[in-house]
């Protein structure tokens, strides 16, 4: 049961959202998109350097850049 930041998940790995750091201008947008504490998130696709990755969250597929995704903390699935 390890905690990680969202971009640190390996490809295909899932986890439960713990919190979204509030001190970022994107945090409200992330919450609207479904990054709520308790929701399940899964890393789906990324480009070669994983500078942008697509995540499955609340039945939709959202692409985020590494620095924006870093304000989401997740608890990895076992």
């Amino acid at each position, binding site marked *: 049961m390890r905690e990680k930041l969202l971009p640190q998940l390996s490809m295909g790995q899932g986890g439960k959202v713990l919190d979204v750091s509030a001190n970022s201008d994107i945090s409200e947008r992330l919450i*609207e998109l479904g990054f*709520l504490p308790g*929701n399940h998130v899964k890393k789906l*696709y990324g480009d070669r350097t994983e500078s942008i990755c*697509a995540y499955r969250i609340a039945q939709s597929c*959202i692409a*985020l850049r590494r*620095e924006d995704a870093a304000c989401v903390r997740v608890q990895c699935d076992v």
Partner: protein
Amino acid sequence: MCGCSVMCELYLLAGQPNVGKSTLFNALTGMHQHTGNWIGKTVATAKGRCRRYGADCMLLDLPGTYSLDARSNEEQCARTQILSGDANAVIVVCDACTPQRSLTFVLQVLEITSRVVVAFNFADAAAKRGMHLDFDHLQTLLGVPVVAVHARKKQGLEQLMQCAKTVSARQEADPRAAAQMHLVASLTGTAPLSRALAAREIVAKVCTYAPMTHGSAHADHWILHRRWGKLLLLVLLGIVLMVTIFAANYPSEALARLFFTMQTPFTTLLRMLHLPPAVIHALVQGVYRTVAWVLSVMLPPMAIFFPAFSLLEDCGYLPRAAFLLDRPFARCGSCGKQALTMCMGLGCNAAGVMGCRILDSDKQRRMAIATNALVPCNGRFPMLIAVLTVFFSGGFLGAFGAAAMLCGCILLSLGVTLLSSAFLDRTFFHCEKTAFTLELPPYRRPPVLRVIVRSFADRTLRVAGRAAAVAAPAGLVLYLLSNLRTGEGTVLSLCTRALDPIARCIGLDGVLLAAFLLAFPANEIVLPVALLGYAGGGTLSEMTSYAALHEILVQNGWTQETAICFLLFALFHWPCSTTVLTIKKEAGSIGWTVLSVLLPTCIGIALCGLVHLVFRILS
């Protein structure tokens, strides 16, 4: 539009991006707003009257927004409309596949007004994914009517309009059932987090679903592949361009021949109207031939390109392209969504500039506006195709060579866009960081036949109509310019002679530069103007084949160098008048408009000068 706006009820269509608001709007009004399977397709509000499904009302289609917090211009616009209280009811369109997010938005609208109808679209798609929503229960929880609709199949619309009529009769102060009011109030806070949590709680009560794999997961494995994704993007672009070039040649020539044979009956008709011979000559040689030229060169490529592009946009590929292209754009201080505005620019730069509203940050928006004219629009496309076909389709590669070069032109304009974005980022914005989110919607099978018919009827014919409307007066002006004689020749030849020394420095000639200047109202007429200038005799020669075009150009001193410089200058020069006006409106500053005109012009002059220099050193 509606003479009885006082008596008509006004309903707003609000909702998150890509939930099908425009499709619903079209179904209700019978209009043909463009729809597409991607976020931000609708950037401006559309208004229409609905006289179907037992209703008579005005509908306003708002741009899709994730919330009403007024962070971006569109959110501000949607919020103002809902807050203004002009509307009798707000129809909130929801995607049944993403109920949690949709309900967050519904709750936010409910904080403002209680005259709300919730319309759930894509319920069938949700059912396919094993999700079931209990709409009756939801209706009790929310205290407003909830209707399941199928916008594309036009199902549930009568009930929707009925409900809208019912809620519009509600007084704003008139409370909903007290208990429900209490429930919503207790669940909802004003902060986004508590609102979203409340939405999740409601979903947990009304939604049952069997966990299933996402439908598009398998396709995305290849389309978003870290290695093959970009290659696939390139191949798709190549296919679309190749099909356009191959298939456009023959209809183009046939159309030209048709117009040529129609010229005699047209002249006879004018004679029957007893017009003076000079006027008839001006109308036939000036107006008719210019319009015929523009249409026969323009119509076929557009009739193929637009439907092909519409199909890609309807199935949901475009956001994937934005995803694949994000990294290079991010390096230049922009984001992948700029690629979407560039795609719109391929259709029309003015539309592309307007499409820049989908970019969230002001910085990215202004950068995208200034660089949009670097993408060749449909007015410039045909002349690229014509010159490429004439000069570069020889050899064993044939039309493949021309298609590859056209693909190269697009990639060049992509590269130049990236470089100039990076330049703007460093000079004007000091590399300021901006956040970026992009939704990848599920793939949806487009209604192929309908897309083809509609994109031909709405886009192709409208664009061609606009081109013809500009070409007709321009043809007359050109006819006058090339027939009014002063001591030393026609007015046109005087102009071209004066421009010649400047134009030679960038590998063009006076006629071509004059043509580009005169084509400021519409890029479509560059080639006809140039041919008129070459002809000198005051009439536009009939263009019945590409071979004839080649002959005329070579006779007037065109070489490979001229062709390359022409292509470069066609790609990079000042935007047309419509685009300039749109830029001024969208950027809201004269300085930025001037920059947007100077940027492509300077790039074009620099590149052409470079090519000219290289050719001079080589020879």
